[in-house]
């Protein structure tokens, strides 16, 4: 093998502390080196031409460039190698700048180290194998998981760009939490008025396949080539026949057995129902757990009234598989339910606020439903216990958020804003009412956000008290809120008619299970992890899976929408080419050596190890060996260190290469 060594002075950056001519002279004597030179700027055009000419003239098989960090110029020199006709992966770099000249003062020491590093690189490059970039085809279809505002936005953006979308929503209707909201900050737009047109657009879009009442069951494959299994839960209604007339809903005799989850448990719903009047699709669902038919086979009123014969009591769950190229996670959040004892050991709950014990202690989403014109009170402020108009309402912020001792360490971000909105909405309707807000800090960063909070305080007269509430208890039909005003430095007691808790936004139920199904990492709270907190906030670390909205961390509507559009743009980047190219730093299995223990499978963070059956000529399986899927493997090499028989190697960093480097020390 003929190796060329090129030592760069980097102007004076390397040359000042490393005697470059001496390094290149020393390199001439390394076994295999046939050509060794030094030059002022190797990365410059003349420098690169020098490399290319040497490769062509001397017939070099591999090159070592002693210059800066490979993170800086590896691509440059690999390109030069390619241009001169050798495989780009037969180029190695010795880091003589960041790791030598810039960190050492003594010329003798630095030069000696530079020689050693160059020798190590030469020994490594001798064992480099020519590699080819990996090309994988792309299926240009997107799966969006979650049909809230983020999922809707992402689906519409991708579909409008001309690519097919499968939108999966676990509830019977899309719309998510935004459809429950009354008005939105800071403009006080009616939430449903701005959302429902988009829901209809999704439903009617020719490129969007909407699958409601469905859940993702299994995800296999890799970027550009996912195979997704989706469970379509049985609605017990034939969607192709149902016209959405709603007769079954009005005639169903089971009226008070199930709480309406859309109304946050403040109303009942029949056994056959749509979550809310504007549901998309407007096709009801029969709740097996309360329907009389499933108890004793009787009733069947809905069957009698349905003129279209759409009721199907015997309908079963259906598994559908879809071929997908990119996945957008938009599963959203839920509110921390403080009524029951939380199962996570690190959350202790807030029993002292009496949520679940007193009917008039409610959370933010319940307040939204009370304030909403389509809610259980038709938008009139009536408290849940006796339907009276509350004259004094206390809002408590940071219930569960920013609380290391009892709740979650993070800030839920939107509570300051929606509490200001709640207090404002209340004051707009109950002019003689009083609204108190207990807060820790007001965090109102965002366009027109701070102004909105000031408006609540200055124009609408909402009283802000800085401090925590220690206890809420009932006395003579009033709720006594005991807290502290830390600015006045004294305890406060307020006799309230209603208490609203701004409970923390937490990860969706089963978010971690879904993350494991899909194969993306999540943090200790269950929020999905982004690939890089600053520069790759949209991508998960798994290729081809993107994040949108509050499934990544608490977010408000504009942020969720922005993130959804960004995720849509990311999928379009992926779909911009027919084949995907990536660096060939992947693991390879020597099938002759592999004993089939599959320890590698257990440690692989990407589920990239598959089982391959080795058959003899009669088709009988002789043994099972590990097989690395190039599309999934990201090249960490954890399998190589785990393999007991050393039959798996990381391309570009093989054991042989590393041993050679050690030997050359």
């Amino acid at each position: 093998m003929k190796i060329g060594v090129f030592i760069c002075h980097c102007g004076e950056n390397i040359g000042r502390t490393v005697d470059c001519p001496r390094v290149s002279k020393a390199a001439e004597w390394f076994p295999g080196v046939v050509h060794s030179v030094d030059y002022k700027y190797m990365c410059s055009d003349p420098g690169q031409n020098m490399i290319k000419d040497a490769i062509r003239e001397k017939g070099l098989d591999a090159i070592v460039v002693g210059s800066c960090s490979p993170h800086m110029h590896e691509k440059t020199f690999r390109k030069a190698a390619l241009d001169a006709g050798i495989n780009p992966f037969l180029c190695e770099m010795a880091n003589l700048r960041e790791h030598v000249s810039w960190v050492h003062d003594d010329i003798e020491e630095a030069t000696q180290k530079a020689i050693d590093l160059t020798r190590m690189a030469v020994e490594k490059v001798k064992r480099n194998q020519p590699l080819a970039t990996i090309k994988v085809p792309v299926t240009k279809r997107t799966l969006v998981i979650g049909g809230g505002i983020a999922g809707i936005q992402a689906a519409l953006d991708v579909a409008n760009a001309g690519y097919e979308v499968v939108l999966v929503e676990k509830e019977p209707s899309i719309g998510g939490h935004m459809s429950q909201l009354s008005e939105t900050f800071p403009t006080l737009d009616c939430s449903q008025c701005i959302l429902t047109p988009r829901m209809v657009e999704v439903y009617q879009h020719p490129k969007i396949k909407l699958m409601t009442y469905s859940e993702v069951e299994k995800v296999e494959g890799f970027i550009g080539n996912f195979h997704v299994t989706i469970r379509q839960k049985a609605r017990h209604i034939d969607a192709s026949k149902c016209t959405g007339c709603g007769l079954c809903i009005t005639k169903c005799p089971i009226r008070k057995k199930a709480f309406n989850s859309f109304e946050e448990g403040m109303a009942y719903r029949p056994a056959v129902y749509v979550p809310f009047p504007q549901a998309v699709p407007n096709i009801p669902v029969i709740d097996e757990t309360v329907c009389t038919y499933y108890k004793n086979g009787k009733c069947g009123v809905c069957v009698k009234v349905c003129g279209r014969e759409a009721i199907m009591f015997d309908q079963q769950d259906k598994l559908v598989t879809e071929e997908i190229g990119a996945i957008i996670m938009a599963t959203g959040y839920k509110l921390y339910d403080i009524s029951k004892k939380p199962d996570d050991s690190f959350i202790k709950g807030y029993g002292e606020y009496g949520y679940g014990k007193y009917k008039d202690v409610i959370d933010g989403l319940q307040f939204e439903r009370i304030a909403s014109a389509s809610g259980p009170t038709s938008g009139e402020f009536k408290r849940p216990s006796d339907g009276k108009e509350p004259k004094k309402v206390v809002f408590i912020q940071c219930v569960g958020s920013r609380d290391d001792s009892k709740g979650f360490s993070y800030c839920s971000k939107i509570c300051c804003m929606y509490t200001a909105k709640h207090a404002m909405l209340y004051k707009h309707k109950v002019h003689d009412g009083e609204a108190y807000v207990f807060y820790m800090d007001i965090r109102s960063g965002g366009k027109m956000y701070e102004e909105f909070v000031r408006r609540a305080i200055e124009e609408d007269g909402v009283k802000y008290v800085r401090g925590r509430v220690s206890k809420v208890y009932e006395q003579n039909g009033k709720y006594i809120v005991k807290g502290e005003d830390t600015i006045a430095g004294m305890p406060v007691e307020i006799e309230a008619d209603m208490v609203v808790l701004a409970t923390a936004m937490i990860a969706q139920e089963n978010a971690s299970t879904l993350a494991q199904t899909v194969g993306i990492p999540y943090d200790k709270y269950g929020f999905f992890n982004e690939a890089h907190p600053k520069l790759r906030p949209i991508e998960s670390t798994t290729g081809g899976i993107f994040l949108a909205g509050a499934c990544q961390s608490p977010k408000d509507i504009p942020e969720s929408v922005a993130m959804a559009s960004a995720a849509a743009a990311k999928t379009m980047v992926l779909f911009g080419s027919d084949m995907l190219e990536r660096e060939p730093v992947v693991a390879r299995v020597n099938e002759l050596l592999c004993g089939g223990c599959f320890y590698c499978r257990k440690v692989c963070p990407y589920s990239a190890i598959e089982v391959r059956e080795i058959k003899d000529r009669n088709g009988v399986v002789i043994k099972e060996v590990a097989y690395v899927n190039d599309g999934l493997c990201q090249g960490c090499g954890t399998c190589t260190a785990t393999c007991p028989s050393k039959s798996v190697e990381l391309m570009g960093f093989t054991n042989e290469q590393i041993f050679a480097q050690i030997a050359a020390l």
Partner: protein
Amino acid sequence: MTEEKWEPKVVAFVCNWCTYTGADLAGTSRLKYPANMKMIRVMCSGGIDPVFIIKAFERGADGVLISGCHPGDCHYNAGNFHARRRWTMFHQLLEYLGIDKNRLQFSWVSASEGKKFVDVVSKVVNDVRELGPFKGYKELNSEFTAVVNGLKQEVNKAEAVNG
């Protein structure tokens, strides 16, 4: 080589994403550390085989440093968790092999911790300098050679007898 001239030889196995980049940052920030340490880049600390360390000691290293991303920050999600478990166990075995535990050190250095990298390297080099040259394998080698020579003689004798 006389004792005064002896300089410790330290090998570092570092991950591409955190510690190697952290070392680059140390360079960019023009921080100084001893030149005794040479780095071998791997993609992830999870891919560092204990055999590499043994091999380094065998090939004359006086100390070894292993460094990767902080637990939880791994570029590959979980590689450094595997590494951490592996090293906790391997460290226990080291004394059994007759190697002082201080000759093998682990640390987590992120891409933004150029200063920490310098501190870690300086500490390792100082610790190894205090321990002195590592002779374990050299002694073993001479022992091994003696055994082999002994065997050879016996074989020769046997051959002579069998003629």
